[in-house]
């Protein structure tokens, strides 16, 4: 029995790095400091695993050798005119880098889950920039913490305690020295913890942010209510933001997925930028999957763009709305795919998912997902951060090394190795 400390948790964008695991017979039997989601993973990662590569034959997925699965995947990608390599938000940066290389080799698209989480944040960044910081800055200095469209208690369970309102920092000793505001369309479990809950009307975040910007400039708002809120409350909130010493706006998919999309982010950044004329204020997206931030980083330094990169021209090209996997599928433009540790069939709208079912694709995933069930090829892989080494970027872009805590099941490779094998096979076939 060994106890391994300070493991980085490969679940959400918090990347808590204080997880303690007890390992017996190459199995994690106990875990400390984990939230409920993290504990579920650390204590169940070895269950319900598919341990065999599968290839579809006569309509059924049949167990095959790894070589056959890799070979079939290589064929699918090589025979395609416009393949997509998609996923990697739950992979280490090393696998992600090989993914970009593969997309370049086959002349396709490299895209990731950003498209259905914080893609609009990237677009907002292109337009306005983003005044931000690392989470420790919030911990040490913030006296006003605003979550907008983020149900952090359920999406990032330790965020509040480790990094924000309830954390103990150098200049703020804890929850009592901070104000917590939650702005949401539902009174979520997170909203119930707030000192102030602002129930914004669905789809009217943009209006509320515009009104806040007006209120900050002492402009008169010629309406009685905005986004379902009395103007007085808007002005009160503006005053609260203006008069704090260090404020932070954490925002979630409530802004990126609802009406306005990237315009909401544009407006949120503008609001925070305006606030800097009065006080210190920063903004940060609540990134979901543990290394979706890393995938943006890797794709950006290798291709210049954070997601939805088209490598079919021989150089990187980028046009979200056109080169995004969702839109390519919607229009039926891509004709094959490799999907790594992602479940788009379960997470894309029906018409988009239906089109994915029409093209041949391969899946690399530790589990059998819904997407895997409809695939041509399925290759099981190890869990990076538990069964394989790697590295990942926290939601605030702090990079952290990921550890191998236990050995993967016999014969199971990391996604980095598998994508590498596909790349290698394609190159040797082409020679």
């Amino acid at each position, binding site marked *: 029995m060994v106890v391994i*400390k*300070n493991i*980085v948790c490969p679940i959400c964008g918090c990347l808590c*790095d*204080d997880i303690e695991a007890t390992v017996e017979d190459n199995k994690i039997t106990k875990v400390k400091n984990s939230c409920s989601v993290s504990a579920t993973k650390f204590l169940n990662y070895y269950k319900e695993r598919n341990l065999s590569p599968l290839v579809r034959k006569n309509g059924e997925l049949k167990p095959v050798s790894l070589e056959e699965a890799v070979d079939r995947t290589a064929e699918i990608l090589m025979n395609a005119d416009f393949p997509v390599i998609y996923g990697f938000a739950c992979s280490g*940066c090393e696998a992600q*880098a090989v993914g970009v*290389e593969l997309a*370049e080799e086959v002349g396709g698209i490299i895209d990731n889950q950003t498209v259905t989480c914080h893609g609009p944040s990237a677009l907002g*960044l*292109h*337009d*306005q*920039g*983003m*005044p*931000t*910081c*690392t*989470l*420790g*800055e919030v*911990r*040490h*200095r913030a006296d006003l913490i605003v979550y907008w469209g983020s149900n952090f208690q359920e999406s990032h369970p330790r965020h509040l305690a*480790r*990094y924000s309102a309830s954390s103990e920092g*150098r*200049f703020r000793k804890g929850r009592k020295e901070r104000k917590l505001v939650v702005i949401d369309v539902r009174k979520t479990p997170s909203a119930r913890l707030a000192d102030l809950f602002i129930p914004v009307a669905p789809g009217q975040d943009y209006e509320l942010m515009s009104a806040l910007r007006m209120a900050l400039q002492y402009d008169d708002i010629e309406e009685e209510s905005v986004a379902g809120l009395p103007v007085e409350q808007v002005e009160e909130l503006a005053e609260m933001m203006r008069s704090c*010493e*260090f404020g932070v706006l954490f925002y979630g998919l409530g802004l990126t997925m609802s009406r306005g999309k990237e315009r909401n982010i544009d407006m949120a950044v503008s609001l925070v*930028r305006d606030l*800097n004329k009065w*006080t*210190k*204020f*920063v903004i940060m997206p609540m990134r979901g999957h543990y290394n979706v931030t890393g995938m*943006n*980083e*890797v794709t*950006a*330094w*290798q*291709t*210049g*763009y954070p997601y939805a990169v088209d*490598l079919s*021209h*021989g*150089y*990187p090209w*980028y046009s979200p709305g056109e080169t995004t996997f969702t839109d390519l599928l919607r229009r039926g433009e891509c004709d094959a795919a490799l999907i790594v540790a992602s479940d788009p069939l379960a997470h894309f709208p029906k018409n988009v998912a239906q089109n994915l079912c029409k093209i041949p694709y391969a899946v690399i995933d530790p589990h059998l997902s819904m997407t895997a069930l409809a695939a041509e090829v399925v290759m099981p892989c190890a869990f990076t951060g538990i069964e394989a*080494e790697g*590295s990942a*970027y926290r939601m605030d*872009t*702090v*990079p*952290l*090394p990921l550890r191998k805590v236990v050995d993967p099941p016999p014969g199971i490779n990391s996604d980095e190795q598998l994508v590498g094998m596909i790349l290698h096979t394609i190159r040797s076939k082409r020679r």
Partner: protein
Amino acid sequence: MDLLIKNGVVYDPLNGIDGEVMDIAIKDNKIVEKIDESNAYVIDASNKLVMPGGVDLHSHIAGPKCNVGRMLRPEDHYKDVEPKTQVKRSGVGYSVPSSFAIGYRYAVLGYTTVFEPANPPLKMLHCHHEFKDIPILDKGCLVMFGNNWSVMEYLRDNKLDECAAYVAWTLDATKGYAIKLVDPGCVEAWKWGDVEFLDVLWGRPEAIDKPVPRFGVTAKEIVRGLCKVNKLLNLPHPIHVHANGLGTPGNYQTTIDTMDSVKDLAEEDKPIIHLTHVQFNGYAGSDWITMRSGAHEIMKYVNANKHVSLDLGQIIFTDTTTMTGDGPFEYKLHLLTKNKWTNADVETEEGAGLVPIHYKKSNFVHATMWTIGLELALLAKDPWRIFMTTDHPNGGPFTHYPRVMAWLMSKEARKRTLDKISKRARSRSDLDNMDREYSFYEIAIVTRAATAKILGLKDKGHLGVGADADVAIYDVNPREINPSSDYKKVRKALSKAACTIKDGEIIVKDGEIVKSIEGRTYWVKPNVPEDLMKAMESNLANKFRDYYTVEMENFKIPDRFITRSSPMPTYYA
């Protein structure tokens, strides 16, 4: 394979070679005395300029800032693409190129070693991630310490040895190369948005004596303290300082005061402080209307004081991206330009900011900035203590280096530009009256020999026996050409090396990449007396819990992330 570069016109200032026609022999990855010509691949370099591979000591090529720059500016990438070839990965980017493109473009210029000048310790893994994807070049990274809580506290409490141990531990843990200071003390104030404190500091020289709120230590004390630490650790490069008050009229005095603050610490005739991108810190006047060059005052000091070296931070008239650890400056630039703005404060340590900018000839301030950079270079008496940079991409992309070299080598080239810039800027500048023109020998000094020397890289920047086989060959005959009038030809030749050799391999032929190899990562491994390190480390894990949101164990960068790791041990004084 052995290589023989035959009959080149060689400029190798570290060995005193000034345009001699000679052969350079290469075995494996080193320059050797002699090789068997019959077994060697012979490169005919007759009538060509041969120099050591270029060495850049200050260019933002890797790490969090650069990547934010890439993400901030898709519009920068559409216009400049780098297609995939048999040997090249693809890429994009004009002022903030993607990683692969950086390696290729430097190699095409004949550069083989480049140092990234500013990463915060907490994000150093990001820098190493990108280093892995910058092909060809040897690299190293300067680590920021000027606003670090522990450093400020050690210095406030006069615990110099502990401070040295802490810096040594951090450089080792993060695989960094040297101590960088960016706007010391002020970034901490900026993290509170403490504009009152910053207002005082911006452009008021006496303010470097003002204690940083909550830490009780002054900018000057931080500079002095880290200068002493640098000496205690015997690091190969002096402290590398981005002085306070950058981008503010009147800041030239702050720059001089910063240099002067460590004068008494100098022992030999070698620099103990490097002031970087001094153009941005060389403004006289009291506002944007009265602004003028402070180059004369600064160079008067530098010429008289051997403990100082500096680099230019020359600007180019183009669209580019400013990026610096100096978060407060970028906020100010955003307020001035109204351009999009990114800020990235890093807990316990430093900050950063980015704003795109377009330097225009017609803009009085931009034109004045352009004159200051060149004046600094032309007023320098000792080229071994002044280096050519554009502070890529802050003054302009490094791909414009040949343009800067042409301005340095040709009065006519300068005049061509002077004719087009703001008349007010021109009339206030001395540049029209400066006749000096750099020789090829001096160009070799300020772009490779002196930079290698100040970085403490003994095998770089020269072509003597034992040197690394990094060589640049350019298709121009320095014995025949007159750069003063033929500056366009010189610029063209320097833009695309006829041949670049790195580690004994031919990388560039006729301006095209023909092979790509992996470069080294240099980092320092300072040895500190055991008892001292133990005393410092005894409470470091707790300190990490108090100060950071990561565990000490996860802050240390495992060796597996370092590409061609080249540690450089140093010993405690």
